[in-house]
């Protein structure tokens, strides 16, 4: 499932490059909807709508693939803020830097992936096992 899903994500990135010549970075596409510019909004909305449709298609037969996070309340909100702020300032997330950037052999993306993997692993370590 992991590998098959990864291939689908790759095909999505390739489709975006073929059709629009763009990087399929979710944080960039989504955050571009927040300060809409004329002629640059509709395609972003269509991408997000397609993403939701695709998610429904798999979630209906495999509902256990949608899971709640173990954190709640303050920590859930803090995590959301950090994910949104960090990916916008760092210009990419797991899709833009992780998938598209590594596939382009971008040095910036390699650096970003190493840094966010490292801080994510340290965070999980601290949360689960303490200092």
């Amino acid at each position, binding site marked *: *499932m*992991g590998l098959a*899903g*990864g*291939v*689908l*994500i790759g*095909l999505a*990135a390739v489709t975006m*490059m*073929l*059709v*629009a*010549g*763009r*990087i399929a970075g979710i944080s960039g596409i*989504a955050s571009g909807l*927040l300060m809409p510019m004329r002629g640059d909004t509709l395609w972003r909305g269509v991408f997000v709508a*397609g*993403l*939701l*449709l*695709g*998610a*429904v*298609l*798999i*979630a209906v037969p*495999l*509902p256990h693939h*949608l*899971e709640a*996070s*173990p954190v709640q309340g303050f920590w859930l909100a*803090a*995590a*959301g*803020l*950090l*994910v*949104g*702020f960090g*990916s*916008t*300032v*760092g*210009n990419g997330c*797991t*899709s833009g830097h992780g*998938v598209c950037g590594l596939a382009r052999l971008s040095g*910036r993306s390699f*650096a*970003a992936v190493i*840094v*966010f*993997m490292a*801080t994510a692993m340290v*965070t*999980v370590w601290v*949360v689960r096992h303490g200092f």
Partner: protein
Amino acid sequence: MASKPIFYLVGIGTSGFLFGAGLVLSGMTQPSKVLGFLDIAAMTTGTWDPTLAFVLGGAVVTTFIGYRLVWRCKRPIFATSFQLPKVTALDMPLLGGAALFGIGWGLAGYCPGPALASLVNPTLHTLAFTAAMIGGMASGKLFNNRKKKS
């Protein structure tokens, strides 16, 4: 481009559709799997979850090959040129932003794609995370713009 709108949008929608299907199928909308991969201490106890490595590996290899096939074309179907990032500097916004992103990802186990995909089951939980993420993106935009002006 007169022929642009409809087929262009169908292509974009297809990309989004494949992305959403891939995220849910791969288990990226299951924080337990994401956090189980990031938990490197579990490597020593045999409870480590390697799923994310297969997801990222499958996605990067597919994209690597596909990009090179697409780049043999002179230009994308519905754009005049490929728009690839040209910046190469390893600057503070990149590294600091990635560091903060990783902390948030490691706390909750959601990154932006799965957060959006999880909204197909709109619980208070998924809505709260995504609302906070959108708030974070908006403040990130303000931060980026403030820097540009100064």
